[in-house]
């Protein structure tokens, strides 16, 4: 065996060690990013989540106006945390379309009663079908959809107050 070959194990080990050390010091990013960003919305037609509400379809998004698509649920606690921020976005003139995941009309109504209703319309996604089609992996998540119905941005987790300007900027960008 030639000499250098004896150091091959050490080299391989150093590689593994280096990788492990590097990754250990990286902040762990557990978010699962949707691969749909940049692509058009999938075709869908959700029934209204509230009695007497509007159904939600992908066709709604192709009228030239950017919107937010908020995937949420009344049983989700972080959704309560982001309610004021959605309220603020609504007041800033942003149209927010809601998608309620695995939810009941009475629970939704109660939630909106307590935490405010920023939504222009809410669709019911009882089998998480739209959620899966969007590549979303939890609640809440918020998508920026441009006027042609293209998904421009995905926000994972609840919207904190510092995220509001970011989303507004994304919406402006989608306008152009």
């Amino acid at each position: 065996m030639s000499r250098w070959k004896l150091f091959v194990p050490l080299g391989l080990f150093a590689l593994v060690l280096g990788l492990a050390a590097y990754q250990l010091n990286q902040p762990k990013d557990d978010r699962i990013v949707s691969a749909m960003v940049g692509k058009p919305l999938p075709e869908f037609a959700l029934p209204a989540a509230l009695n007497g509400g509007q159904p939600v379809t992908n066709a709604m998004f192709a009228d030239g106006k950017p919107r937010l698509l908020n995937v949420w649920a009344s049983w989700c606690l972080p959704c309560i945390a982001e309610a004021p921020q959605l309220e603020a976005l609504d007041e800033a003139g942003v149209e927010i379309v809601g998608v309620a995941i695995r939810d009941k009309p009475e629970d939704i109504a109660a939630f909106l009663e307590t935490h405010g209703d920023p939504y222009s319309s809410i669709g019911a996604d009882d089998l998480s079908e739209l959620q899966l089609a969007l590549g979303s992996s939890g609640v809440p998540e918020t998508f920026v959809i441009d006027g042609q119905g293209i998904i421009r941005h995905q926000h994972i987790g609840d919207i904190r107050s510092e995220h509001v300007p970011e989303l507004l900027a994304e919406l402006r960008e989608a306008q152009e």
Partner: protein
Amino acid sequence: MIAEIGLASLWLAAVLALLQLAGGVLAFRTDGTGGENPMGMFIRPAAIVQAFFAACSFVALLYVFAVTDLSVKLVAANSHSAKPMIFKLAGSWGNHEGSMLLWVTVMAFSGALIAALERRLPERMMQATLAAQGFVALGFYAFLLFSSNPFERLEVPAPEGMGLNPLLQDIGLALHPPVLYFGYVGLSVAFSFAVGALLTRQVTPEFARVSRPWVLAAWVCLTMGITAGSYWAYYELGWGGWWFWDPVENASLMPWLAATALLHSISVLAARDALRAWTILLGVIAFSMSMLGTFLVRSGILTSVHAFAVDPERGMFILVLLGIYIGGALLLFGLRAGAVAEGERFAATSREGALVVNNVLLSATLGIVLLGTLYPLLTEAFDVRVSVGPNYFNPVSAIFVLPMLVVMAIGPLLRWRRDRLERVMKPLALLTVIGAVVLAIVALVADIAFLPLVGLALAAILAVASFIPLRRRKLTRVPLATWGMVVAHFGIAVALFGMASESAFSSERLAALEVGETAQAGPWRVTLNGVDPVAGPNWTALEGRLAVRAEDASRTSEPIMMAPQSRTFWAPVQQTTESALATRWNGQLYAVLGNQLDDGRWQLRLWWKPFVTFIWYGGLLIAFGGVLSIIGRVRKDLTRRSVRSRLASRRADERALEAAA
């Protein structure tokens, strides 16, 4: 007070490990330049006293858990006064700090054992070995004392403990980690021997014989640990799976693969004085895999459940230890292995030849598992996330495992040094026929996937092949170690049969039943007789009463009763499913009680898994074979030693007589 005694003992043990290391280094450096360094004489006593203090420390930990001393942080975080005593004790090692303390305690005991008893090797090599052992131990003591102190007090004692996770309140799991740790420690001893051999440039058959029982013991423990862990995951998690190639599972499989390779190459070194450098390298790799496993599990770097991970600082600590020990040993290997002569030669068709093939293929399998386990980590460095699962591991590892199993059937039939295939033609023909017949029958009768099909055929071949080495031998005179090999190889066949059969023939039935209704699962008819609330010491549960009858049995025949539960623990609050198992000789019926639907029906998950139990029977047989080998080897060593000492004393007597005359 007890906790402080425990901590003090730990410090003392650490100091003794330092003494053991320092003594070894001094003795090693001055030796050869004239006379022995007096420090050398401290090494063995230091190892023995160190074990005593480590044991004191561990007993102190057991005590604070037994009395649920809630002023100790670890107890408050992991125990609860309402827990059954056995789980209070098990709780002491069911957490990071406690398990590390258990590790060093066992390690100190192994060190004491070799320090007290092992006299076969040259003293210089023993000193180097014990110094290496002290060095490794020192790192773990430092880890405990500086970043994982199990005896840390709370300023204000907690009013009540946080409880132990209910999934861990299980006797199988209570025993599972310590058994794995014993295995890891055994590999650390083999590692120390390998370093000692490298340092003194004495990679001899004697070195192989001395370290072999440790490798064997480690391998037995790893085998049992994996078997138990797999069975635990199978019945506790409630989905009927027994192996998922999860990073944590792989972390326990990798040391086993390395240890298996080491076990075989060390046999070649002991019997034939060949494969010297390779054996040393495997010794280092085996221990590095056990440390890597510990790192992966403890740092949580791979599973996305990083949030729980003991802070990255601890992961970094283990990583630094890993770098020092394994990096150092591999560096030493690179520098020294060139000077280690290759050893005796042998022909391709020989026992050694077969073992070399086994070693290469095992190492390649290890490489695949390592690659698949670490690859997601690599892509994450580039912000891409990938998953590597069974659909990758199964076929890719089969590339190496299947030929290895074939060689495993043939190898033991060959003679050492050189042999001719013609000599073993008859058994080979027999095995080929068996394999072909099983393959043909199974392929005709059932429509199953390729891998299980080949698995069934190979299992049949191996089952027969493992006993062929016994033919034409007087069974009472076959050495115990040979019996060990036969049993262990047969165990592989049994486990393989179980795995193939489970994956080929399992049938699943998901049913929603009203009370009184019946569902069919495989050849069984399962009737839901009722669902009742029951209460345990720290949980309440809904318990399903299932009456199970064979398909062809009459309606009035005595049924098998099964009682799967859906448990709710209250400290901490958590729901678990307790599956119910009905074990028959030819398989297991597995039942899980799910939720109640709005219409009042109950969800049941039922599986009939033919011969699934053979997986774990096989695991036990493999471990038992290892135990037989250890007994055989150690007994042989003891007789050899007593013969030698008798010879020596007779010679001394003769000399005395001559002198007198």
